[in-house]
């Protein structure tokens, strides 16, 4: 194909038009505050789970690396708790909100996704797999989570965060 400036310019204009249409969608799908407020109706006072050495060791076993936080803030009422967690997918942090009720995942939402690939993990077809999941032996989920081709590491990060949310919920209720 020979270089044709007019054709390239037209393609560029087309791309910019598409870009303008998509500009407003952004990568922050929901502010964490709004997620917490949505779950409880209002935003309750946060509570803090202190990561003692024992909790840190178990969290490290779940994550495959030591947890970077020393305290984990969360929100809860008598029935459910909300955990805003962050974990690296391939290169960047994924911020996700986990609602835990009666020891199982009630629902999950990806709040912020920073990478340019792998956003498939934010869609309901992927997230619905976590519904009702609970911890089984070895702090693993009681079910297989089907991966998404090309988003293997983001899928792994979501699974680890789900396990951590369930584990933190259990620790917060002891």
């Amino acid at each position, binding site marked *: *194909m*020979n*270089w044709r400036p007019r054709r*390239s310019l037209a393609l560029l204009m087309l*791309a910019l038009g*598409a*870009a303008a*249409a*998509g*500009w407003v*969608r*952004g*990568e922050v799908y929901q502010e*964490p505050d709004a997620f917490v407020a949505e779950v409880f109706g209002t935003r309750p*006072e*946060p*509570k*803090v*789970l*202190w990561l*003692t*050495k024992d*909790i840190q060791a178990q969290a490290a076993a779940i994550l495959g690396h030591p947890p*970077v*936080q*020393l*305290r*984990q*803030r969360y929100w809860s009422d008598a029935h459910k708790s909300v955990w*805003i*967690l*962050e974990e*690296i997918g*391939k*290169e*960047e*942090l994924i*911020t996700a909100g986990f609602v835990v009720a009666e020891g199982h995942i009630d629902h999950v939402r990806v709040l*912020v*996704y*920073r990478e*340019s690939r792998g956003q*498939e993990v934010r*869609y*309901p*077809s*992927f997230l619905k797999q976590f519904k009702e999941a609970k911890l089984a032996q*070895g702090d*693993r989920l009681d079910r297989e989570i*089907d*991966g*998404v*081709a*090309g*988003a*293997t590491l983001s899928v*792994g990060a979501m699974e680890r965060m789900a396990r951590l949310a369930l584990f933190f919920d259990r*620790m*917060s209720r*002891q």
Partner: protein
Amino acid sequence: MKKSSLGVALAAAFAAAPAFAQATVDQKLQILQQEIDDLKAQARRSAAPAQQTSPYSLDYSSMLDRSSGLASGGTNIVGYGEVGYGKFRQSGNATADLQRFVFGFNHRFDERLTLHSEVEFEHAIVSKDDGGEAEIEQAWLNYKMSDAVNFKGGLFLIPIGILNETHEPPTYYGVMRNQVETRIIPTTWRELGAGVHGIVSEGIRYDVGITTNFDSGKLDDPTTGIRSAHQEGQLANARNLAVYGALNYRRPGLLVGGGVFTGDTGQNGASNPALQGVAARFTMWDVHAQYRIAGLDLQALYAAGTLGDADRITAATVAANLADPGVTAFAAPKSMKGAYVQAAYHVYKQGNFDVAPFVRYERIDIKQAEDPGNNLFQNPNNNERIKTLGVNFWVHPKVVVKADVERYATDKSQDRFELGLGFMF
């Protein structure tokens, strides 16, 4: 950090924690001391230019400095590598090789602009007397306007096939990459160019762009289709460019997609004067699918390509041979196609351990533009069927041990047993 600041930090920490659960006072003091140490370390590092932090991490998780490096303004390192051992059945010869070690730097300039790169070393040693190679596999900038619209520019991978963009060893079956995505789709295939990509609705991802193209004057091995005409961003002749487009649909456990790439490759004879004015249009397309259900991994791919003016490329190799007897003349590839089907089953999964035997059947057919007058004929090995039986054993999601047996229907000298070790990080 000043003492008064530490005091404020302590006070703030306690004030922000109305409900202290589980931990004893001693444990809390230990944790706070650890946090103070981390803050001190962070303060020392902040002598460097200030970096933005994730607006969520500090508030929600007390993640002291992780986000400052990754969410905004940071650089991180990724990589993968593989080691292989192969023993050939006919000759009994065997080789062991560090096939590749790849590391990449990714940098976030701001909320929207990122750099992605990979540097690859093949075969352990790169020197004048050794067969290794050092190469830049990717170096591209991405400007994310939204999930739906990303602009990219630089040296990037062409979205054709499954392996070309996702080729880390733990993500595929077999010690070696499959032959269809090696000889027909020239994985790892990258070009210099610009593109637009994104995800437009649940699971539908597009990628389109303009890039450099192959240079048919550089062809020197017709057994690998178009591969030997690649330019890989090295002083690439760019008189002729190419356009590409790809569309993929992904859901958990399912991938269906395809791509197309087309453009002239004559480059106005820049590498072989006999190709001046020859278009030599190259077009390649593929369709592929993956389906995972109940421990079963199924995968299939079909790829096909054509190279126009192949008879003139053959003639150009003859002319090059006449000018320099050190250059070998050959019948240029005029069409190439290949397909494979693969099935794997996860027979054992416990903790990080995951064992999955697999079978794969591949078919390759590369047709060449023969020149009987100059004794240039079709290579019979370009029509090949390959059966592979093997097993992947993940000892960690990012570390895999592999073994397989490959049987070739035409070129039986390639029959082999292989062992491999792969990792990514």
